[in-house]
């Protein structure tokens, strides 16, 4: 059984006991424990079930590479699935539960799959469930989905109460990894004077060295770490961060770091995670190395663990994984585990070493303590079900004939180490195969390149393929200095030193024994979580899935939540063996961010709920809010859709607003309209190119309605342009168009007409804009006093500056409703004041505010087009009968040539008309007019469509505008519009102007 040892454990505080629960059971732990160490201390080796076969799963590792120990954490709104127990720090009151089983962890009916595993090889689902077709959707797929999926889904109504934040940082050098390599690199770069951020994903500095190392600079490793930290903390140019993981490296030195602020203390105030966006001139990856498992039958049974993890639990947490540990290895390093077990007073019945190697100091030390070292041997199979009970030993060279059984409850395995090259690789860093260590290491000649073609990532220490302590320190110091040099700092000081322990070479063994039968190979796990075995990779190769990407996807190797940190190299070695190709030729799959999974909450950051996106408020926003507005989102703006009074439906409110505006007086908040100042000696020339109309001839004091087309000729925006003075124009755009028309102007100015003397400024938010509309519009303005708004002083399509009720304003005599109308621009800061004034003084004239829907109906009654309704990116001005706005005098304007293309000049186009239903009803939005027969693809032929359709309260009937094939030539003809329910509505083609055809009301 696994239990707490008498020895102390360097990372736990034995003076502070805390309690947590696992599957409802209350258990004890110490401060500093990870959930994995605490579970092991409570003899809870079984922690979950695998993905495909629901095999029992135990803790196998001690860090970020853990594939098995995934748990549900917390409850309610703070529930989190798939948390890695090895990187979860226990706090008092933590609640955890195991995953992927029914009804319980101990007894899981899904485990039936493991007995069927012979019928469920890699890719089995591609080969079955094909017939009969409906069964896939209704039976097979739901079953597969339910049995897969690991963690429980959070409840549908979960609302995460925690907050998350972004943090932006710029630095010379970012060092990722706070082991001795990272600390050393930081000392080197820091002493040189470079700005350094050093981050470590765990809570503790020093990494593995404190467990495995001997002495640095002649002092115990722990002491050296303490001193190094002291020196680093004393430097002002160094920022140290624990619990912060380098998650991803992106182009040009952009690095994502993931800081976990409160996960180790449980629910608390302040942000839970902080996502750092670091811009680093140089990135040093001191990310260490990960031990590889070995492939032998039964290597997935709980109790089979990485050798390094077994000693980590003993030394760091004072926890034994079991009483009797058999070590199986292809290298010297694992002997350290035997020593650690002996030091803890535990038994090591044997070390099984596939090598036949002369004694080295490590082997010697183990032997001298009476441990049996079995050379040239391998594990034929591990015995046990939910826990290891023993191993059968065989010769590595043979086919697995059992020579001896050894009872044990832990198997500590080591297949060598692989540098953590993920961050090096994210942004295109290439790897090279290291024969001696049998691993991929960063190829310094093919580092990720920055914007200027120079390398910006440097690997250091074990992450760079240096596996001996002395070499790690030397390499890390050199690399830290290199980073400093690249940012222009001058290296100083000398590297720390340590003695290397002489070790015998590793023997790459990818399968044990060498001649294992299918039965054994089908019990050798490569990917513990996804249940991918040696036989699966071999099957993939046999079936032609030879590319490492095909093998991965066919078998799901390395696609689990650990992203193959333990399985990738072993898997592709098996593939290489099968293809009879060298490993480097087979290559690796692509490393993608993040290094380990990061929370969606952290990625989303602060922006959620009300502040999900910036809310743009017009100056009158609060007034609308106070007057019962029903809002409509328009981009980031909120615009009043209508102002329902008590008991009114939205529809009632809109109808009332429409009628009142025509009969009395309406107020519209038009502040969202885009307002762009175009200024400079070439402003007129520029606008002549942008608009289809001639703008350069516009006189100061006058307004002109203009159209803007894309280079492809399609109508993209419209609005009124006012000339302020010779050099200055004010261009109004649609509300949705303000930003992209501004960008459109800048794009042309910056890329094509860069020598024209024009500036564009977006002043949309500097002004409030109020449309005062209706027969009494002039009356209310005159009642405020301050400027002459008579027809003579301010004629239609003119503008003037002045004051109203003491407030400075600019008034445009323009109309989008066909009524007498003044659009009043006012400093944003005084807009609400003016609005209130107009509203108060307007009472005597029957004033009512109206919203966007009434605006739409008023303009539709007049046959005015609306960008986004009559246009959809496929419509040209000619389609809308706007020929009058296309200047024939200008040599060119954007869209002119495009509009000369054959399809654009086709006489048979869909053109704008009015549509009047025969029965007075409203045609549904977006309905099409049917034609005769079907086309070559069997689709019903259509001959037109509705673009705007409303109930007109003024005309007391449905009115619509639409685009119809040769429409204007077919006045009076009746069309059939099909509804989605199959019924039809009939409408006559009419003139698009429904109201005040002569236009007498606006120009009074």
């Amino acid at each position, binding site marked *: 059984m696994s239990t707490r040892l008498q020895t102390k454990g360097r990372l736990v505080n034995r003076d502070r006991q805390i309690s947590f629960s696992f599957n409802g059971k209350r258990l004890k732990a110490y401060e500093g424990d990870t959930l994995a160490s605490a579970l092991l201390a409570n003899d809870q080796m079984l922690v979950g079930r695998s993905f495909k076969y629901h095999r029992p799963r135990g803790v196998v590792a001690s860090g970020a590479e853990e594939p098995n120990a995934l748990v549900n954490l917390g409850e309610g709104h703070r529930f989190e*699935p*798939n948390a890695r127990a090895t990187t979860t720090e226990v706090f008092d009151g933590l609640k955890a539960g195991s995953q992927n089983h029914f009804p319980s962890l101990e007894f899981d009916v899904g485990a039936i799959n493991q007995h069927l595993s*012979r019928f469920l*090889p890699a890719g089995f*689902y*591609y080969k*079955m469930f*094909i017939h009969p077709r409906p069964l*896939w*959707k209704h039976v097979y*797929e*739901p079953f597969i*989905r*339910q049995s897969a*999926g*690991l*963690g429980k*889904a959070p409840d*549908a109504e979960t609302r*995460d109460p925690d907050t998350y934040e972004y943090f932006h940082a710029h630095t010379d050098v970012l060092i990722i990894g706070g082991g001795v390599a990272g600390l050393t690199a930081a000392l080197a770069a820091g002493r040189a004077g470079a700005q350094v951020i050093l981050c470590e994903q765990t809570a503790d500095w020093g990494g593995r060295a404190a467990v495995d190392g001997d002495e640095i600079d002649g002092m115990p490793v722990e002491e050296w770490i303490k001193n190094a930290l002291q020196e680093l903390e004393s430097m002002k140019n160094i920022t140290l961060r624990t619990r912060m993981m380098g998650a*991803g490296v992106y*182009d040009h030195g952009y690095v994502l770091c993931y800081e976990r602020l409160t996960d180790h203390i449980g629910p608390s105030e302040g942000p839970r995670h902080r996502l750092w966006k670091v811009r680093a001139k140089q990135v040093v990856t001191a990310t260490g190395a990960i031990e590889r498992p070995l492939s032998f039958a039964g290597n997935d049974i709980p109790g089979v663990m990485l050798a390094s993890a077994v000693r980590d639990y003993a030394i760091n947490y004072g926890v034994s994984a079991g009483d009797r540990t058999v070590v199986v290895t292809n290298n010297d390093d694992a002997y350290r585990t035997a020593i650690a077990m002996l030091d803890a007073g535990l038994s090591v019945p044997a070390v099984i070493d596939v090598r036949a190697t002369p004694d080295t100091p490590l082997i010697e030390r183990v032997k001298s303590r009476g441990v049996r070292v079995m050379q040239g041997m391998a594990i034929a199979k591990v015995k046990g079900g939910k826990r290891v009970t023993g191993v059968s030993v065989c010769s590595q060279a043979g086919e697995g004939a059992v020579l001896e059984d050894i009872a044990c409850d832990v198997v500590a395995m080591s297949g060598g180490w692989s540098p953590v090259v993920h961050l090096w690789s994210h942004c295109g860093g290439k790897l090279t195969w290291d024969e001696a260590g049998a691993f991929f290491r960063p190829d310094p000649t093919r580092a990720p390149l920055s914007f200027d073609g120079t390398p910006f990532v440097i690997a250091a220490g074990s992450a760079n393929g240096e596996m001996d302590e002395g070499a790690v320190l030397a390499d890390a110091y050199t690399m830290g200095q290199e980073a400093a040099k690249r940012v222009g700092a001058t290296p100083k000081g000398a590297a720390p030193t340590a003695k290397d322990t002489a070790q015998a070479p590793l023997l790459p063994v990818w399968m044990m024994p060498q001649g294992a039968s*299918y039965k054994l190979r*089908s019990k050798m796990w490569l990917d513990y979580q996804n249940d991918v075995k040696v*036989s699966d990779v071999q099957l993939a190769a*046999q079936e*032609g899935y030879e*590319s490492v*990407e*095909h093998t991965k*996807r*066919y078998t799901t190797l390395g696609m689990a*939540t650990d*992203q193959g940190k333990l399985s990738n190299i072993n898997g592709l070695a098996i593939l290489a063996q099968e293809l009879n190709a060298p490993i480097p030729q087979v290559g690796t799959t692509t490393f993608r961010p993040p290094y380990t*999974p990061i*929370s*969606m*909450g952290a990625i989303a*950051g602060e922006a*959620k709920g*009300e502040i999900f996106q910036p*809310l743009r408020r017009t100056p009158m926003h609060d007034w609308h809010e106070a007057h019962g507005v029903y809002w*409509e989102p*328009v981009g980031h703006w909120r615009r009043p859709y209508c102002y329902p009074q008590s008991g009114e439906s939205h529809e009632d409110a809109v109808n009332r607003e429409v009628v009142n505006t025509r009969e009395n007086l309406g107020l519209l908040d038009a502040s969202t309209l885009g307002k762009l100042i175009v200024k400079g000696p070439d402003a007129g020339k520029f606008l002549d190119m942008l608009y289809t109309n001639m703008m350069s001839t516009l006189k100061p004091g006058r307004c002109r309605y203009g159209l803007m087309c894309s280079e*492809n000729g399609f109508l993209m925006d419209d609005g009124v342009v006012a000339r302020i003075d010779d050099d200055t124009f004010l261009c109004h755009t649609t509300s949705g168009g303000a930003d992209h028309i501004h960008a459109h102007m800048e794009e042309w100015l910056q890329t094509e007409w860069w020598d024209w003397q024009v500036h564009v400024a977006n002043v949309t938010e500097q002004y409030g804009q109020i449309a005062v509309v209706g027969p009494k519009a002039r009356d209310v303005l005159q009642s405020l006093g301050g400027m002459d708004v008579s027809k003579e002083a301010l004629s239609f399509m003119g503008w003037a500056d002045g004051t109203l009720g003491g407030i400075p304003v600019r008034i445009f005599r323009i109309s989008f409703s066909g009524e007498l109308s003044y659009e009043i621009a006012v400093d944003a800061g005084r807009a609400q004041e003016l609005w209130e004034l107009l509203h108060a003084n307007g009472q005597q004239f029957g004033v009512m505010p109206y919203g966007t829907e009434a605006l739409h109906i008023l303009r539709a009654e007049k046959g005015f087009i609306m960008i986004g309704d009559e246009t*959809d990116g*496929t419509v040209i001005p000619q389609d809308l009968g706007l020929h009058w706005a296309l200047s024939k005098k200008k040599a060119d304007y954007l869209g002119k040539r495009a509009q000369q*293309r054959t*399809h654009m000049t086709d006489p048979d186009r869909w053109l704008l008309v009015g549509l009047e239903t025969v029965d007075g009803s409203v045609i*549904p939005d*977006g*309905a*099409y007019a049917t034609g005769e027969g079907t*086309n*070559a*693809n069997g*689709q019903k032929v259509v001959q037109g469509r509705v673009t705007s359709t409303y109930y007109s309260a003024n005309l007391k009937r449905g009115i619509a505008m639409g685009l119809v094939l040769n429409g204007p030539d077919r006045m009076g003809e009746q069309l059939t519009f*099909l*509804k*989605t329910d199959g019924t039809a509505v009939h409408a006559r083609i009419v003139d698009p102007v429904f109201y005040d055809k002569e236009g007498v009301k606006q120009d009074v």
Partner: protein
Amino acid sequence: MKKYSAFAIAREAARYHQGWERAWAKRAPKAKYDVIIVGAGGHGLATAYYLGKNFGITNVAVIEKGWLGGGNTGRNTTIIRSNYLQDPSAAIYEKARSLYENLSQDLNYNIMFSPRGVIMLAQTHHEVRGYQRTAHANALQGVKTEWISPSQVKKLVPIMNIEGPRYPVLGGLWQARGGTARHDAVAWGYARACSDMGMDIIQQTEVTAIKREGGKVTGVSTTRGDIACDKLGIVVAGHSGVLADMAGFRLPIESVPLQALVSEPIKPCMDVVVMANTVHGYMSQSDKGEMVIGGGTDSHNAYTQRGSFHHIEETVRALCETFPMLSRLKMLRQWGGIVDVTGDRSPILSKTPVDGVFINCGWGTGGFKAIPGSGWGMAELIAKGHSPLTDEFGLDRFVEGRFIDESVAAGVAH
């Protein structure tokens, strides 16, 4: 070819799976083919498959620079739908969707087509009108879609927050017969079927030149030597411009990165595909349990198959807002692909200025869903010189201004 079935699995299990054949043969290229398809992605393989199946043309090679299915076929978010607005689009995507329904049976390879339904959310009044227009168009195009209310949306997707606060759900366009499929399996299934017809799938072989005589194609040069052909299909999303350049013509396309990501796997919680265009994101849950998430394209042109992180942020933010329960899930992996984007956001399936050279490209962000229909039409185009499915998608439309603009209906990647 030995048929796949539960029976075959039982038979092979009895002999330790030693009897399974290669899914597709590994053969050396021949000196000449009737048709060479460049690009062994879904579209290229489907084109080859229907050349054989519908027209009996089996002296065909599919040449692939890397590994088959390794481009956008193996990188997309596997959404299948046909609720497009414009007639030519609806025709080809609906053809594809209907072929997907029987593709597992047709190919004898389970591509796991899952007709779980697709909702496109409307969160502004403008979007409501747009989708109602699409619904009307679809009814006439023979594409079955339906406008559904917010409460129907909530019933289909209990994890959705339909009440805002910023963009309350106003309804949705629902295509019950849309869904997802296993993307790799589509490529593998077609490859296996092509190989079975005697076609050669030649991987790890790059085309370096396109040979012409008198304005007509005669073959290609590759990293494994010259190969002659009568007709050549270029189906190489992401690098179409490069191949067109080899054939001596230019394409009106830009290549931009498109990114996607998955969460860690969780038990089933969302049975349909949801696309939310106002907030810019879409999501489905894979059979493995991962939440599969995508958003818009990056705004810069590039050939690197990775993108900018701020796009991932924008997408995840949109989806956390739409599905608040996502907040404590974790992103497992993000990746990118390169998509060819045309001026009207519709594909090009066309003859070219070079006699005998045909091109299929420009699918932008939505190519996976079209694979069978695209292959079907492209095969007809190559075999007969035209196809009703592809006629409207010719290169000449850019000269004539006869665009097929879908941005009206879908302003976001799909």
